[in-house]
């Protein structure tokens, strides 16, 4: 019995599986990948996730099919005591593997870097002075986290502070996230935004919501016993509805706004300690 050409057979199986599965993964899984199309940043992240998925599928198939192939074709016969060939390596295979994985990894890192910078931090917290800042008018919104709720401050609207997050659609929003006590993380799930709220730090992120919607806000960093309950809904509304809403809030919270510190883009109160 002649041994089949395992390398060629495995190669063909893998190639066929890859050619079928990769487009399927992109077409079927791609559109349902989170975080969805709630904002420009979210849509860009879906694209990134799809690219990573397209890269990961062939690798996944390579190893899994190899594993299954070996388990089926290279078994020890029952009760047998056969030995395999005493091969200790193959310079060509090793070199190819190193070159291919290096290229794959370097291209992924380059791709991610370009995406991160062109998309203004991809909705993630980019520190007090982000490297890339979108041009044009921006709506600054300060997110103040504390145990266990978020407060939202609109500096350009008299510094009104409100427990509700409402954003106008199509407007680039500049989020300034900070905390009054421990580390929290502001996660607007459907908008593709996640920014750590550190006491004493103004952490900036950019997001442009693209449609009218309701989105979930959650805390994504362990902050004490009610961490899991630290969630709320935010709303993206039309610009005119936003104007109406913010004026209403200004009236409602006017007595409180009077007591708040004067206008600034950042607002870093002293954190509290145990026993105080």
């Amino acid at each position, binding site marked *: 019995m002649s041994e089949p050409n*395992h390398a060629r057979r495995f190669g063909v199986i893998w190639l066929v599986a890859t050619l079928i599965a990769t487009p399927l993964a992109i077409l079927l899984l791609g559109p349902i*990948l989170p975080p969805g199309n709630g904002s420009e940043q979210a849509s860009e*992240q879906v694209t*990134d*996730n799809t690219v*990573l998925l397209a890269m*990961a599928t062939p*690798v*996944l198939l390579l*190893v899994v099919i*190899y*594993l299954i192939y*070996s*388990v089926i074709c*290279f*078994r*020890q*016969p029952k009760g*047998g005591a*056969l*030995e*395999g*060939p*005493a*091969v*200790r*390596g*193959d310079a060509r*295979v*090793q070199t190819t*593997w*190193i070159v291919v994985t290096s290229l794959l*990894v370097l291209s992924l*890192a380059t791709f*991610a*870097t370009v*995406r*991160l910078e062109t*998309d203004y931090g*991809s909705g*993630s*917290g980019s520190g007090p002075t*982000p490297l890339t800042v979108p041009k044009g008018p921006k709506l600054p919104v300060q997110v103040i986290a504390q145990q266990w709720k978020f407060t939202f401050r609109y500096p350009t609207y008299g510094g009104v502070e409100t427990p509700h997050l409402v954003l106008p659609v199509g407007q680039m929003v500049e989020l300034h996230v900070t905390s009054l*006590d*421990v*580390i929290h993380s502001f*996660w607007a*799930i459907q908008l593709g*935004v996640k*920014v750590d709220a*550190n006491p*004493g730090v103004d952490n*900036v992120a950019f997001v442009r919501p693209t449609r009218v919607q309701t989105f979930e806000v959650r805390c994504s*960093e*362990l*902050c*004490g016993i*009610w961490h899991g309950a630290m969630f709320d809904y935010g709303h993206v509304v039309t610009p005119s509805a936003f104007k109406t809403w913010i004026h209403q809030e200004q009236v409602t919270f006017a007595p409180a706004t009077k007591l708040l510190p004067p206008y600034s883009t950042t607002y870093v109160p002293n*954190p509290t300690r*145990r026993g105080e």
Partner: protein
Amino acid sequence: MSTTTASASAPQPTHRPLWRRALGFNLLTAVLLGVGGYYLGWFIGHQISGPSFNYESATDENDVALLLAYFFGVVGFLIGLGFANYPLSRLLGRPASLREKEQEGIGRYFGLCTDHKVVGLQYLVGIGVFFFIGGLNAMLIRTELLHDTPTVVGPNQYLSLVGMHGTMMMGMFTSGVLGPFANYFVPIMIGARRMAFPRIESLTFWLLMAAGFILTSTIFFGGFPTGWTGYEPLNDQAVIGMDSYICFFALVGVSMCLLGVNMLATIMTMRAPGMTWSRLPIFVWSVFATAVILVLAAPVLVATLLMASLDRTIDTSFFIVGGGGSPYLFENLFWFFGHPEVYVLALPGFGILLELLPVFARKPLWGYRLAVSGMLGVTLLSFFVWQHHLFVSGINADLRPFYMLSTEIISIPTGFIFLCVMGTLWKGRISFAVPMLFCLAWVFNFLIGGLSGVFLSDAPSDTGTHGSFFVMAHFHYTIMGGLIFTFFAAIYYWVPKMTGLRFNESLAKWHFWLMFISFNSTFLPLFALGMKGMPRRVSSYAPNLVGLNVWVSISAFVLGFSMLIFLFNAVYSLIFVREPAAANPWHSKSIEWQTPTPVPVHNFEQIPVFDADPYDYGTPLPLAGTQAAPAGT
């Protein structure tokens, strides 16, 4: 001056009366001195700082007292075990001896013993106990998550459980995973009679056990709310249960560092003649790489926790914004330890895997040098990636491309391991014994873990998944799917050597299949849960995620049940049935299987001389051209 010279005095006869045996340096004395030290520390602490009461629950909230109590307790415990005897007698000019090694009987497993084989078994049982406690915590966590609001244990207890589960698994089990097999087999594999520092070897184990006890004691002090990461300022804000965490992890850090030093010294200086670096078994290489990480990373943890304890006790401000400190400092220092630490959990798995594959594929290890460079590459790179844990934190945001690059580069050496696995399987004669099943499961599990890691290392993609159940699923795939599966492979492979007894094979196969299926059924859905918006460490979550969570919980219970099968098998096979194992059941060519069972106290009559690596399997290929050559030439 040789420390291996047997003591002049013969071992004492063992049939002394019970009360006489209870006196002296043993576990009983250790516990008594430990308790005494605890109360002494508590008393001194209160003399220094006076009691401070928490007005809500009227509990004594004296951090100084508790930390001193733990400190004196541990010191008393170690003195009771006899760790002070050797340094003191050397100070008094008495001769050195390794008398602790010559003990006989079951009693040596319950005290200071310098026989590396005893320490290996101590470790196996010791960390095994904490693995099961940690597993029970996980069962309670999953019970709570059956419902989307806190119902069963309440949010406070829930956080304590999450913290206990994570900390216990990281500190007590996976950090100590070198303990059983490295302590037992590294000296044998390199042809040595003992470890370089046998007393330190025993010290690492007893420090770990003291640490485990301290961690468990946190339940009497209100638990700790921070999870295993202990982030500031939540750490500073927490009740005194947090001090248990600090003291626990600092002790684990000391234990890990000492273990690393000991392994490095042993591997570097105690190799038998002919055991060159290029003949070192790949498992020993993985221990070497792990030990480098332990020595370099663990001290950072100890220093970090010292700072945290000072913040808590005498109101320094290392991590407190109001006083000029920064929580970022804690995050940086913690992950500077923490990320190398997760490779401490991966590398022994690589080593066990590559050590076992040739035996069951009946082929030499494919790509030995590639595997070694892969491990060393991971070791080196592991110190350059820690800020990928802080992609959304806002610190050094402009450095994110660098940390993306370094993190993704680390998948190149990890890829070497996959290539070596695949090369070793290629055209092998694979037999599916239980250890091999666990190894093959590693390939699938670690692949999923690794590929999901690529998503996390990509900063734009990480925005969605950071701090969510996606991360949780990722590291359970690498740690549980990677390390714990190979750990079980090692148990089924090596325990017959360590005990001379064999496991019941059909129970072992049930254990494997149930564990493999329920493991994947538990953790694959967690990727989806994370992407759908479930943050980590929550006791309440969005109602639309209840269905998936119930599925995960039920799978987790099955996973827990598979562990019970293992436990039953271990007790049933090793304690009740006691069927002797074959001398070399796997037909391994590694040296540990050529020694008698049980391995003699000094391992070898004569130090062996090596002339090849232990992977001499397979039929040699005919050299190209030899068949074509005419017979006469």
